[in-house]
């Protein structure tokens, strides 16, 4: 009933937002070279939010997105996470607000960060296995097992909070709509576990706790969720095996001689990737890197850091103190 209305309102908000953001980009474009790429990224995140929003309300198969995104991470790393993901956008906005409030961010110790990276594998495993387990518990007919993977209608607001909405959000679908066979696809995570608990109050409490926790954690640590979001493990896999080393096509490339090791790249990274700083030179494709290109944007040495796609340079660091690109 209210869904079309909400959809329209959201659509308007987003449209106005895009216009404002576009304006912002143009304003920033000429002024501050350390910010323009970041704002462009926010703009693209916003546009993709609209894109995702409409494709979801059109009841396209989200599973297609999931497969495409997972597939792409093999080749482009977590480009999706940095530039498209709506949940990432939400976290960036939270960071921006914190920044405007003048509150400092916290850093996780490198050891904790590394431990969180391992947590990704566990989360991924849980996600993959849980539908089967739940299916076994509930005696779902074999012909309907796939429905466990592909179910749940999408609430418009859900998109705001979820990267791959089904991966993250203990929300929507299952409670509101008990039909197993609506094909407005989902992918079970906490939500379905909650569904099988069958206590709606608990569900809503968990939802609020989840939202509050992500909000608080993101307020303290930049891009907190991304540090253990399993989306990035495919590139980790591609990097691990020798035969697959060719797979990541999108690389950060570092020229060793031009690097003075000033440490800016390490400090500005929202997920505290240290490889860009530590590695001597050449191609760098850490599995946690979001390809947000913040390090490239902030590196003050001409041509020291580059983003390469299959050997071609997309963007490179430059002396951001200079206002023009005149060579």
């Amino acid at each position, binding site marked *: 009933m209210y869904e079309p209305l909400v959809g329209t309102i959201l659509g308007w908000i987003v449209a106005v937002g895009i216009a404002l953001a576009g304006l912002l980009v143009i304003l920033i474009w000429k002024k501050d070279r350390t910010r323009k790429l970041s704002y462009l990224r926010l703009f693209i995140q916003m546009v993709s939010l609209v894109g995702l929003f409409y494709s979801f309300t059109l009841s396209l198969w989200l599973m297609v997105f999931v497969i495409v995104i997972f597939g792409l991470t093999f080749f482009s790393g977590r480009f999706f996470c940095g530039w498209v993901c709506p949940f990432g956008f939400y976290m960036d906005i939270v960071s921006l607000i914190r*920044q405007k409030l003048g509150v*400092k961010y916290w850093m996780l110790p490198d050891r904790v960060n590394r431990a969180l990276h391992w947590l990704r594998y566990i989360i991924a495993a849980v996600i993959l296995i849980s539908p089967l387990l739940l299916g076994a518990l509930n005696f779902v007919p074999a012909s309907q097992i796939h429905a466990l993977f592909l179910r749940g209608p999408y609430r418009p607001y859900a998109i705001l909070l979820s990267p791959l909405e089904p991966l993250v959000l203990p929300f929507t679908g299952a409670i509101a709509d008990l039909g197993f066979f609506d094909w407005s696809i989902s992918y079970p995570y906490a939500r379905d576990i909650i569904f099988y608990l069958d206590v709606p109050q608990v569900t809503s409490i968990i939802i609020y706790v989840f939202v509050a926790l992500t909000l608080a954690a993101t307020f303290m640590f930049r891009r907190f969720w991304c540090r253990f979001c399993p989306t990035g493990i495919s590139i980790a896999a591609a990097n691990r095996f020798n035969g697959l080393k060719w797979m990541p096509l999108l690389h950060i490339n570092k020229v060793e001689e031009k690097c003075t*090791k000033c440490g800016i790249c390490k400090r500005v990274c929202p997920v505290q990737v240290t490889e860009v700083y530590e590695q001597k030179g050449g191609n760098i494709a850490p599995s946690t890197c979001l390809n947000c290109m913040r390090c490239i944007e902030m590196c003050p040495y001409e041509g020291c850091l580059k983003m390469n796609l299959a050997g071609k340079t997309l963007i490179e660091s430059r002396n951001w103190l200079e206002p023009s690109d005149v060579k």
Partner: protein
Amino acid sequence: MKSQTAEKKYLPEMPQKEIDEANASVKSTSEKIMVDNIERMKKTDPNRPAAMKYFDDISNFFGQRKEEIEAEKAKGRKVIGYFCIFAPIELILAADAIPVRVNSGWYDTSKFGDRVVPVEVCPVIRSTIGAKMIGLSPYLELSDAVISTLTCDGMTKLSEILSDATQIWTMTPPRVKDSAQSLHLWKEEIKSIKTQIEKLTGNKITAKKLKAAIETMQKATKAFRRLQELRKGNPVIMGRDAMLVNQMSLWDDITRWIQKTEALCDELEKRAAQKAWACPPDTPRVIVTGTPMFWPDNWKLPSLVEEATPQGVLVGDELCSGDRILYDPVGIDEWTMDDMINGIAERYLMASTCPCFTSQDGNEDRINWLITKVKENNANGVIYYVVRGCMLYAMEYARVKRALDKLSIPVYYLDTEYTREDVGQMKTRVEAFLEMLSARVDF
């Protein structure tokens, strides 16, 4: 501003008459040398940029700038001196104090320093001690406190010796840059120096003020880099002139320095468009690395290179008194106090290529810096300048030579003293090196 009653640990008592006499004689020699140096710079490049006039004037130690600082001081502003370029200038500016670098370049004062430390000690140190003993350096005398970073052995003891006569704040840089604990130590040092600056000046360093200071320094870096960028092509400016401009950023009012440097760069760009070169484009291009050289006396090597036959031109240097001063900007992600302090700490420690650092790869930061400089500025040769007693630079020579040999860039090790006596002998050595370089250029 230590109380005069405190017992002196190092500095000898000198009768006031002797101090005055020494001061007067060294000062008059120094004034002559400054004029002479500038005259020689004008002679080398008859078509010298008009904007250099300002830098010539400001370079006089006993002239305009000294009076300006005195006037500011009378108004209640504090002056904070520093030795190494590890001192966080942004913090000094944010506290509304005046930063000045107080290393001494006077040859004649080193003989007074000999009374305190043996002649084997680095002449930069001896000369600075001597300058303090006879009260020669106006900037050192005007400093309310001096930030001394304990980089080399000389600096470590220098701060101890000078604390007899002035207030010294020491900062300990870690010798290894790449570890979490080093950075932690350095950040604490920066925070403690911040507290001390606030205490001395009575001004609280707020986020707003610090942001303004960082932005000023970023503008300075921008102007500074623009000048270095212009030295990459055919020579539009002689190396000595550029070095003078670079060094004036250490003493001058930074906002004014930015304006004047931008004006100079505008002029140079016009010249580049007109192809009005400062010297023939096939002049051998030389880069200097090693011990810092300070205006006015220690202008020996640059003068020799650019006045030699065959002539050479200094297209860059890897000196902490030259191209390294403002090269690195403070990059700030978020303008919060915490991030700004982190940014300042990292810029001064990690981007530094001082030989006091070591790493598993043999201080590769300095090597990389030099290689980039050599490549980007198309240098034909490198002069490795070391004053006797400067251990760290002397010891790194073998490492640098090997790295540059790989690029087949000739390196020449030139050691000297704080003296004018070896000018003739140095001239022969420099000319032989330039002869070889120009043969290579022709070839």
